[in-house]
């Protein structure tokens, strides 16, 4: 019995260096993608509250397509589907970043839209009355207030995107889950390795959850 336990720990310890590499990849893809997604979310979020019908329609179509299809389909579409009919070729890493970005971006559109709409209309009016343009009022007055309110939702999207990266294992990106799979396909210790993979995801995600709650509490105070 004791031997079995020490055995388990040994398997886990040996797997750690490879898994940590995988974890690095997971975090790297998530961070790059979220940064891109923030830009997408802001731009399309502004589209979605614009007076221009065309811009609003573009934003609605984008959000609905992304939210209405599984992310796994999106991954295969970018990595295999599009190259099948065009000359566009993406490395697995690029495809992964593209999919996580446009996927998280679509959800961030809604977060930006709700955040901006939550700011009292009088703020925009006060800014415009002083002589600021729409863009200046957005940048100087509306967004600083809105982004503060959006922070907990951002962190939640961060968490969702981290979990989504595990699906990138299907196109062979050496992220955390893929690293685990490559280890247990060699040593057949699937239980130990997957347990460890789960623990590593959990530690990161739970830390972010605590951070998000802390942010929410701080927002309440101010």
């Amino acid at each position, binding site marked *: 019995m004791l031997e079995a336990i020490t055995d388990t720990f040994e398997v886990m310890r040996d797997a750690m260096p490879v898994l940590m590499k995988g974890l690095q990849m997971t975090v790297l893809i998530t961070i790059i993608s979220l940064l891109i997604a923030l830009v997408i979310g802001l731009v399309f979020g502004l589209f979605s509250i614009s007076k221009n019908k065309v811009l609003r329609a573009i934003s609605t179509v984008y959000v609905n397509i992304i939210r209405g299809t599984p992310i796994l389909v999106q991954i295969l579409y970018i990595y295999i589907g599009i190259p099948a009919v065009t000359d566009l070729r993406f490395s697995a890493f690029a495809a992964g970043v593209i999919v996580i970005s446009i996927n998280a971006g679509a959800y961030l559109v809604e977060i930006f839209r709700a955040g901006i709409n939550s700011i*009292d209309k*009088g*703020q925009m*009016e*006060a*800014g*415009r*009355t*002083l*002589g*600021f*343009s729409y863009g*200046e009022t957005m940048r*100087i*007055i509306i967004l*600083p*207030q809105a982004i*503060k309110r959006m922070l907990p939702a951002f962190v939640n999207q961060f968490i969702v995107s981290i979990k989504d990266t595990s699906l990138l294992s299907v196109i062979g990106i050496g992220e955390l889950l893929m690293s685990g799979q490559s280890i247990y396909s060699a040593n057949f210790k699937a239980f130990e390795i997957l347990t460890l993979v789960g623990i590593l995801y959990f530690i990161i995600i739970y830390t972010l959850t605590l951070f998000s709650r802390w942010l929410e509490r701080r927002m309440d105070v101010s």
Partner: protein
Amino acid sequence: MIKIENLKKSFGKLEVLKDINVKVEPQEVVCVIGPSGSGKSTFLRCINRLEEPTGGAIFIEDTNITDPKNNINKMRQKLGMVFQQFNLFPHMTVLNNITAAPKRLKGISEEDANKIGMQLLEKVGLEDKAKVYPDNLSGGQKQRAAIARALAMEPNIMLFDEPTSALDPEMVGDVLEVMKDLAKEGMTMVIVTHEMGFAREVADRVIFMDGGYIVEEGDPEQIFDNPQHERTKAFLSKVL
């Protein structure tokens, strides 16, 4: 100073302003009174195009601000506005609320802007609140800060949209005092208000609006003591 010709405004099918013609002379203080729903706030908000007029023309110092060729942002710098709900920027200190626009729109240095800001705060009696955030001010203090913010752009005209309607009664006096000082200094002002005593004391001219029309206008004595129209009489008998 302000010339409004055949101003019309509809929200969908609802016609809020039907045919408004007004002239405001330099240094004149005009108070607009009337029952709620009479269109007086919409009228005021059309003057700086917070509401887009659906017809007519508005001239500010001979420039037609309803003409899309004219830069509305530049024109609004000459038109200060004070809101019923103050609309201070909660993420900025009181001083930054005042200096944000002059710094960014007029390119005034931080140091000079702060100097101007402090002078304005002194003027409205809030010099000790410069570093405070708006949430920590009382309603009356907020409104005085909002007046200082509007003045920081050195407007030629000040528009007031029911500036005391959201205030506790004991706060109203301080705000009205600041407005009286402004009037004495010769500021051109258009004030939508329910404060009849203030209108009588400060206004050069009172406009009574009802149903999207100007029903009657004249100097305060005439409107308050000797109204000509039935609707003016009925309204005043309810509020005085």
